[in-house]
């Protein structure tokens, strides 16, 4: 009994030093919690990244020569311009296709919503490689599209595979699910009563959509567009496999400089330019919205 009494009074005296949950020792050292991850990322993420920075200014000789070469080369500038153009097209196309899907899924809910999201998820979780392979078959010289065109009398059938068009089309197709999920995350929080209020005040469906729903869904559009645009800037696999071998995108150019030309300095400088573009966009996003929201 006496023991119980001291037990109940003990926390009262110790209370000021305690945090909720009683992790006293950790308050002084959240260090123990974050240090392993910080150390690991420093050694296996920041150092290799720093190595790319260093290589870009030290290989083959110290200085900014690699950057000067990049910006003096019409080929490399063409690659950069093509990359931005493609990313922009892919972002717009995937937005156009994704918006109605997310809109219906968010507003309808129920079985139709579950069906739409289920199908989007199927596409989302299927490897880029599998989907690239599917487009390789479909657009191939002996594939169904060319077969159909030939049967319709289009001679000679146009080359589809290994063109910038093929890569752009396939990337847009691949990134639609990302866009849908980004849009849906915002749209499902839009209050349904706002639309009903607009309707009861006499707004026609299109007007209600344009003045009430669309503005509220814009944060989702911005999230999705940023995510898709940046993913597209650094896309390697699909453009390399089904894009034009001459008209490379920037990631493919880095791969080429590194694998075929063994010009690590040039590859590093090109990498830094790609990274700068991606980081600038993220920094802009973080400034306005906070970066964690991107993946929520």
């Amino acid at each position, binding site marked *: 009994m006496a023991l119980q009494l001291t037990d109940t009074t003990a*926390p009262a005296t110790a209370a000021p030093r305690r945090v*909720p*949950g*009683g992790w006293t020792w950790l*308050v002084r050292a959240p*260090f*123990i*919690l*974050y240090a*392993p*991850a910080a150390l690991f990322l*420093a050694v*296996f993420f920041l150092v290799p990244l720093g*190595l*790319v920075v260093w*290589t870009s200014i030290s290989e083959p000789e110290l200085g900014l020569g690699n950057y000067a070469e990049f910006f003096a080369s019409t080929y490399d500038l063409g690659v950069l311009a093509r990359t931005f153009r493609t990313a922009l097209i892919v972002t717009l196309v995937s937005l156009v*296709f994704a918006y*109605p*899907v997310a*809109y*219906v899924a968010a507003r*309808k809910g129920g*079985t*139709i919503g*579950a*069906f739409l999201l*289920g*199908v*989007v998820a*199927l596409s989302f*979780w*299927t*490897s*880029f*490689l*599998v*989907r690239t*392979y*599917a487009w*390789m*078959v*479909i657009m191939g010289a*002996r*594939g*169904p599209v060319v077969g159909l065109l030939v049967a319709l009398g289009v001679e000679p059938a146009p080359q589809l595979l290994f063109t910038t068009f093929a890569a752009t089309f396939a990337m847009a*197709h691949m990134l639609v699910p990302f866009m849908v999920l980004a849009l849906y995350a915002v749209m499902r929080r839009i209050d349904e009563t706002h639309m009903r209020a607009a309707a009861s005040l006499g707004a026609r*469906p299109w007007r209600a959509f344009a003045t009430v729903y669309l503005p509220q869904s814009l944060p989702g559009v911005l999230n999705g567009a940023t995510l898709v645009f940046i993913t597209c*800037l650094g896309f*390697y*696999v699909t453009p390399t496999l089904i894009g034009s071998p001459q008209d490379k995108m920037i*990631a493919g150019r*880095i*791969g080429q400089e*590194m694998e075929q030309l063994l010009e*690590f300095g040039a590859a590093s400088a090109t990498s830094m330019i*790609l*990274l700068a573009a*991606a980081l600038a966009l993220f920094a802009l996003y973080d400034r306005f919205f906070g*970066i*964690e929201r991107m993946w929520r």
Partner: protein
Amino acid sequence: MSRSTLILAVLVVVLLTGPMFIVVPMSFSTAPSLEFPPPGYWLGYYRRVFSDPNWTGPIINSFLIGLGTMVLSMLLGVPASFALARYQFRLRAAFRIIVLMPLIVPHIVMALGYYTYFGTLGLVQSMPGVILAHACLSIPVVVLTVTSALANFDRRVEQAAANLGARPLTTFRLVTFPILRPAFLVAALFAFIHSFDETVIAIFISGRDSATLPRQMYNSFQMEADPAISAASSLLLAAVLAVIGTRWAAALVKARSKPIGASS
């Protein structure tokens, strides 16, 4: 909502998924290269995927690397999530940025970095090298999942446990962990998939002996030599379909049973 909007949405998702299924007839095709429709059907490519060491090796490697990545990124990412969600510390903002950065840096840039870095460390073309690289990419995934669960965590249940006399570790074992278990499972699964799916870094740093499945698939695209790729693709598609199918079926059953339960 108008009927045409609905039809448009359904049409888009059908166009989104439909083309992927072309890999299924291709996997039974007898054609040695890309040809559609297939000239004949057989099961030879499936047999090859399950017996040819060029395919079985990478499949096993991908599972091992995925599991290694999962364990490593959970061990590092979960404590980091607690630090970020529950504590203020110096350099917290910097730490947050470093944790999230692997999601931002394009994989090709990291592939270039690892290519030279692991060369000097003697880790190039080795399984530990791929695991270390993949763990960097999976840590942010784990942290995003776990911190979001922690943000919705009602800490009063921990205080209650402490008030009832539970020591910190007991509180964690009996209260915190069970509540967060679903989030941990999702985080672990994401970490695994992130590694299993990762292509670009694997292409450049996993050598012949530690080649992953995506690397093997990528190489067979480039060579256009091995049509077994279609069988591998179909299997991956089937795996995703199975997981989504069960989850979706469960959601459907729930949606159906609710109104019935309410009316009775």
